[in-house]
């Protein structure tokens, strides 16, 4: 049986989907965002992640099912996150299929950086998709994340047209995409692609210590953390363009 590399299965997660959830953190990422708060997830073998291990689908499902009474009561379920789930697509698809037979609600958090066909194959198995949009400008996107945004935007467009439940998230990063001009450009982009709802994730430094542990430089040292109230103006620019905006990770 196929094994998946998972670096954490975290119970009682409240901010990545409806209700009380269990987050399954996949190892491996094909982006290298400079502000990443989970740098230990970059390597697919989980080399840097304490607790990373190879799991069978059944092992993950067994762990997820332990909290089923809480999902049932709260409308929660499992959230696949990472790292980047698409780095282990085959495993993710098997896992989702099995979770569906157990009637577990599934949310997916992704960068959206994958081929359209792959994207379609996985999201048809999940109930809700969180997809990041880190920058509207391809060159700047490349500069911040190491990859082009074209596939991502393509997948966002697909989601918007598919009628599925989804949410586009912008991690708002100081001096990267946090200006009023940036907000306006995002708004234009979303109007073009048909995105109606956006969630803003304020920049934080929860991952700072991990950089030190991994002995790699942290580029955002000393930057101030953003709080909900810092993003009110930014949010207004988007909402003035008829886009529904929420701030923070809770749905």
């Amino acid at each position, binding site marked *: 049986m196929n094994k998946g590399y998972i670096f954490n299965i975290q119970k009682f997660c*409240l901010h990545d989907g409806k209700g009380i959830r269990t987050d399954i953190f996949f190892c491996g990422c094909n982006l290298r965002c400079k502000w990443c708060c989970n740098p230990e997830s970059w390597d697919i073998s989980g080399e840097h992640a304490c607790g990373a291990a190879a799991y069978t689908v059944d092992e993950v499902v067994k762990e997820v099912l332990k909290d089923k009474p809480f999902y049932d009561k709260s409308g929660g379920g499992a959230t696949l996150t990472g790292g980047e789930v698409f780095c282990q697509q085959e495993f993710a698809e098997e896992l989702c299929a099995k979770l569906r037979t157990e009637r577990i609600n599934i949310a997916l958090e992704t960068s959206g950086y994958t081929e359209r066909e792959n994207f379609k194959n996985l999201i048809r198995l999940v109930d809700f998709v969180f997809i990041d949009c880190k920058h509207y400008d391809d060159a700047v996107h490349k500069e911040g994340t190491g990859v082009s945004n074209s596939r991502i935007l393509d997948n966002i467009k697909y989601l918007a047209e598919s009628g599925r439940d989804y949410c586009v998230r912008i991690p708002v990063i100081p001096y990267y995409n946090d200006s009023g001009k940036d907000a306006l450009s995002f708004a234009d982009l979303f109007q073009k692609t048909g995105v109606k709802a956006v969630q803003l994730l304020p920049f934080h430094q929860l991952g700072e210590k991990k950089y030190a542990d991994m002995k790699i430089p942290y580029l955002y040292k000393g930057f101030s953390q953003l709080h909900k109230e810092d993003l009110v103006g930014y949010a207004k620019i988007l909402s003035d363009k008829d886009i529904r905006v929420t701030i923070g990770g809770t749905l």
Partner: protein
Amino acid sequence: MVLKNYFGEMTERIKSFRSALLDISPKVCTERAVLATRAYREHESEQVILKRAYMLKEVLENMTIYIEPQTLIAGNQASENRAAPIFPEYAMDWIIAELDDFEKRNGDRFLISEENKQILRDIYPYWKGRTLQDKAYTAYPESARTIYDIGIIRNEGNITSGDAHLAVDYENVLKNGLSSVRERAAEKLKNIDYADFNDMKASYFYKAIIIATDAVEAFAKRYAALARAEAETAKPERKEELLRMAETCSRVPVQGARNFYEAVQSLWFIHLVLQIESNGHSLSFGRFDQYMLPYYEQSLKEGVPREELVELLENLWLKTLTINKIRSWGHTRFAAGSPMYQNITIGGQTADGKSAVNDLTYAVLQSIGRTKLPQPNLTVRYFSGMSEEFMQDCIKMIKLGFGMPAFNNDEIVIPALKAQGVSEEDAFKYSAIGCVEVGVPGKWGYRCTGMSYLNFPKTLMIALNDGTDLTTGKKICEGVGKFTDMQTFEEVLAAWDFTARKLIRQGVILDNCADMVVEQEVPDVLCSALVADCIGRGKHLKEGGAVYDMISQLQVGVANLGDSLAAIKKCVFEDKTLTREQLWNAIVTDFGGEEGERIRKILLSAPKYGNDDDYVDELVVKGYDTYLDEIKKYKNTRYGRGPIGGNYYAGTSSVAANVPQGAGTCATPDGRHAGEPLAEGCSPAHSMDTHGPTSVFKSVSKLRTEQIAGGVLLNQKVTPQILSEQKDCDKLSMLVRTFFDDLHGFHVQYNVVSRETLLDAQKHPENYKDLIVRVAGYSAFFTVLSTQTQNDIIARTEQVL
């Protein structure tokens, strides 16, 4: 950030009263000691029950009384607020021995004047050999006394103070007045057949009730006179209040109450006098929002503004804070913070399964949310039909960060009580007593929990050491060999089972002996008169007067036992990462040296209770099963004398006992160092639950809760940020509801961690591994964050005025 208190503001009067009370450095008051000694001397030859009644009369007639300038309710326990009276009949040795140390304690300090020290030294000779402690300790059979001395089983509190741990029938006193109780006793007395031994014995009890109720009446009238006298010189507004107080005190508690004000005053008098009669703690109010409702509605109907009624409640809560108790230093460590555990229970359901929440329920919540004091101890009865509106108000109180309310779950408590023989109707009327434990108000005897404490991990270590205590080197009981000779894990389990049963038996001997002597020496008159069916049977509570009389001991370190068993099974017998000798040497040396620390790490990595891991959770259950099975065999001193029950059951509401019990326990195979605290109640061992609250709930729910009717105590910690948004509060509600509805949990309470705790967590991250905080919409373990982020969270910790 400063937020407005959701529950509103106290009035100026209440604020001033509250701050005056909080400014007090508690003292020791010797009045009761002197008056009790005088009464005992004077009535030396009387039957004990009569002597107790004369003692109460002497105290109530002569103690100092006063009316605080801010209060609307009269009645004080000692010569000053929050001063602890001395109850010499229970114990004097420790008082005299510790006289000079009361002020020097590092917690629960009490001031005492040289004059008062001398007063106590002067009465000491009279009490030598006459106190409950002297007589009980002498009466302990030798084998049990050895165990008591070493401290594996403790019941010091049971022989050095009164019992309480009950709620009396307040409903009846409020409605029919204390006079109805007196009349019933008088009626019974008329029909006594003195040729019948039992009848003759009952006659003293009835006479005692008449003396005691008369004394309460006289006590109330003293306040009526004082209020009237003070009214003469008072300003007009206060004059009016004092005159109303005078009128009320001349009516209640002797006659029935007619409105909310009279009911509160009547209730306070009774609740107060019971705490002058005896210093037993956990004297509880029962289902306050049910029996007080008719008076509340009456006052509203008469046009009294609701805010005035809420103010009266706040006033009552401040009064509960004026009550104090001094415990020996040894016992103080089991109950840190000199708690009185005056529980008040609200909510729950009616016998027909409808919500019992009413406007008074909200008024209670509101008033306690304003006074925010450690007393009274608020319990909300949860049931599946509880409205979300009420649940959210409870969560708003949790956010205030003073640990209230605690939830008890009807869905498990009611069936558990029925299984113990409580009638369906009474089971629906249960209330919390003290903290977690439950009983039927007005019908249940003393100490539904609160008998002796049994230290589980210490018992395990004795079992593995051939019956000898590692710390003192003393032989405790017959042994079954040494751990180093045990070939299989089954032998380990068998050693635990054998030894635990021996010690459980010794605990019962200690408890029964204590109860026997309490019955002989310090019966309570008024308290017995207010519990059904003492008057009907002509028996005080310790003679078997109560309708129900089931009691529980406290099992301490449940999690440490299970974690230790799991570590032994996994590391020694399955993975073989440690030999028996390696493990044993590490225990004996308290994990000394590099090798010891290495072994400790291996033990720490074994599965731990609180993470929803069946491997260890099943061992916790298995270990506990020994207790549940053995305790069923024993009866208490009231068995066959009238009450339903007369037996023991299990309970884990070990209050602060986990700390001193841990202090006297050697290193344990779960990786715990010698002297470190044990796990509290049925909560996981400190910092061992690393998978969040759902996993803790799952683990706890595997215990045989329906058999642990003495309470399954679970404390959970959260930070205010976790509950900063409404969505989060909704999710907390769902979490708790799942625990109660689907997993049938017994109890949970939340400690919202304060800013101070967060600062301490920065200094000592090793102690706060399970602390979850919320930042900018994300949750994270506090200790993994950078100092900068931690500081940010601390800076943003809400403070509520």
